[in-house]
């Protein structure tokens, strides 16, 4: 059997990925690539990372058998990988710790980040506070409005939050603005990208830092059921929680890997954030080549999702590759389906999931119905929904 070995030395996953950046950033990316290669397998670095994951984040996160949900849905058994129990409430912290430890080693006193839902911003502000780094977070002004609690959390943690007014005022524009900051302050600044996108080495590095999710899952599933699940399901915005849980499973036969994109108001309406499922064209944005929602002139089109963290027109290049080689499947669920799954998990299991995560849950429910009772679906419960209560209340016309 040929073992999966991606990306190549220049960060290509087949035709995807790469380093499509302005010349000013090339040197910084090369420096980062070299540093990451140096520390990637360094026992001291890895020990420090593992220590923080255990003592600061609270890993390993448990896997929980959602029995009542499984019974209610009828069909396969649904298990949840509880990333929502991590410190700061989502998987994002796994990655920010890894990158912040690199920033420290590279002597960069200032970190910047882009954020959509605010979870990555909070996770970056958190580790910056702990390590004594200056932190600036870029956030689309639309997202500043819909994720107000996270904006305040970042400020409490000492970060500066910069609302971005350009373009669609969401995640992609926050990324543009963070890139502009980085080009200007490249000498003293480390850019902590929050998902498996951006130029090489980010997609690979973020995947590696998030792979702890899948590594733990493999061991935990053996302990719990004596085998691996039939399907692993995760929501896909940029795709970091999905890559984190998929990656250790790529070489495991008979485990279906299913990424769930945001169908927004419905794929047919064009108001969605599902570049893979909607068969968008391939293009170049934010440093890599991937599937991108765009018009005939190659301009990026506005996306829609009820969840800010999935509201992104592209997707990590490794997902584009896994789709093309048919190792992973990609589907999409609508805002309404995600909302229904959100409420369902709250009421049947006593867990309030993030709206992003609710997309994965919605598809897991659909899939479970088609499977037998002895089959197992593992859902990456990427984050908790405390940050979303304002959005949910607003949708129900309730003012808090």
């Amino acid at each position, binding site marked *: 059997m040929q073992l999966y070995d991606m990306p190549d030395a220049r960060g290509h996953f087949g035709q995807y990925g790469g380093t499509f950046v302005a010349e000013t950033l090339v040197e910084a990316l090369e420096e980062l690539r070299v540093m990451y290669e140096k520390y990637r397998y360094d026992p001291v670095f890895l020990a420090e990372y593992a220590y923080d994951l255990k003592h600061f984040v609270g890993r390993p996160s448990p896997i929980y058998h959602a029995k009542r949900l499984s019974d209610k849905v009828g069909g396969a058994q649904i298990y949840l990988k509880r990333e929502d129990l991590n410190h700061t409430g989502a998987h994002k912290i796994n990655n920010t710790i890894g990158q912040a430890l690199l920033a420290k080693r590279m002597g960069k006193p200032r970190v910047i980040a882009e954020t959509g839902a605010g979870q990555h911003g909070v996770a970056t502000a958190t580790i910056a506070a702990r390590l004594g780094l200056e932190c600036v977070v870029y956030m689309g002004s639309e997202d500043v409005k819909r994720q107000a609690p996270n904006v305040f959390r970042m400020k409490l943690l000492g970060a500066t939050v910069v609302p971005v007014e350009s373009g669609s005022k969401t995640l992609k524009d926050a990324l543009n603005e963070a890139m502009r900051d980085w080009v200007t302050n490249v000498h003293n600044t480390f850019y902590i990208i929050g998902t498996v996108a951006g130029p090489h080495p980010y997609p690979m590095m973020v995947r590696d830092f998030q792979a702890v999710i899948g590594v733990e899952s493999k061991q935990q599933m053996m302990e719990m059921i004596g085998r691996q699940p039939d399907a692993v399901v995760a929501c896909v915005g940029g795709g970091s929680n999905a890559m984190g849980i998929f990656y250790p499973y790529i070489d495991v036969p008979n485990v279906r890997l299913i990424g769930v994109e945001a169908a927004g108001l419905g794929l047919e309406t064009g108001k969605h954030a599902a570049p893979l499922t909607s068969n968008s064209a391939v293009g170049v944005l934010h440093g890599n080549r991937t599937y991108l929602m765009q018009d005939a*002139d190659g301009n990026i089109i506005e996306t829609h999702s009820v969840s800010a963290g999935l509201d992104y027109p592209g997707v990590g290049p490794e997902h584009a590759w896994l789709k093309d080689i048919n190792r992973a499947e990609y589907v999409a669920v609508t805002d309404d389906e995600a909302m229904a799954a959100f409420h369902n998990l709250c009421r049947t299991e006593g867990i309030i999931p993030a709206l992003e995560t609710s997309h994965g849950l919605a598809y897991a429910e659909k899939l479970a119905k088609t499977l037998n009772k002895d089959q197992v679906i593992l859902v990456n419960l990427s984050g908790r929904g405390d940050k979303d209560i304002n959005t949910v209340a607003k949708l129900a016309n309730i003012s808090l």
Partner: protein
Amino acid sequence: MSRIKTVFATLKQQGKTALIPYITAGDPHPKFTVSLMHTLVEHGADMIELGVPFSDPMADGPVIQRASERALSHKVGLTAVLEMVRTFRQTDQLTPIILMGYANPIEAVGPVVFADNAKAADVDGVITVDYPPEECGSFVNELRARDIDPVFLLSPTTDAKRVELIVNQASGFVYYVSLKGVTGAVNLDIVEVAGRVASIREQTNLPVGVGFGIRDAATAKATAAIADAVVVGSRMVLAIEGSNESNLLSNVANLMTELKTAVDAA
């Protein structure tokens, strides 16, 4: 000989530096772009850098971002830009036109179709901000096969090894970005730039243009003294932004005259 080469050769004989204004195609409205281009030439532009609007101009500061947004609000994309070049060429067969933009509009049609269309419109050079040489080998070949010059950016962070790599792919000229930052920043350090330009010249015979941070006659003059071409972008776009329909062309003409005088005096 390519138009770009010819212009640089002529200027060199005259002991002059090229002045290259940048405007975003379609800004403030597509109906003005061709007249603006002719106005630039009438008032001293040796070449024109024509920006292709893009939804996500990551290397641009607020001024050129706004220009892109104005153009996109009138649905100006690559096809429309090439049409403008074609119209311009009906009355100007001499002034080189260099397209400047981002990779995705090129990716959307593919490098072959892009190069064919650019050739048909009689474009002379292409600068693609987010196509570093490592990622655009086949694109460069397509351009070269049609005698279109791939123009590359060099930055303060580009080391000698990369300069070597880049000048081997580039033709027409190379464009030194005078500072770390986005377009429209204002902290140009002329002494440092002079040093960098000198060391680039040791590695290539291609003309060296300098841009980013040139905002008035003084900085244009200082830059002209050390470079083969002076590129003025955000300042030009600001003049467009600050104009109305009736004074647009005269405001741009006045700015060009001021810059041209400064560049020629260097």
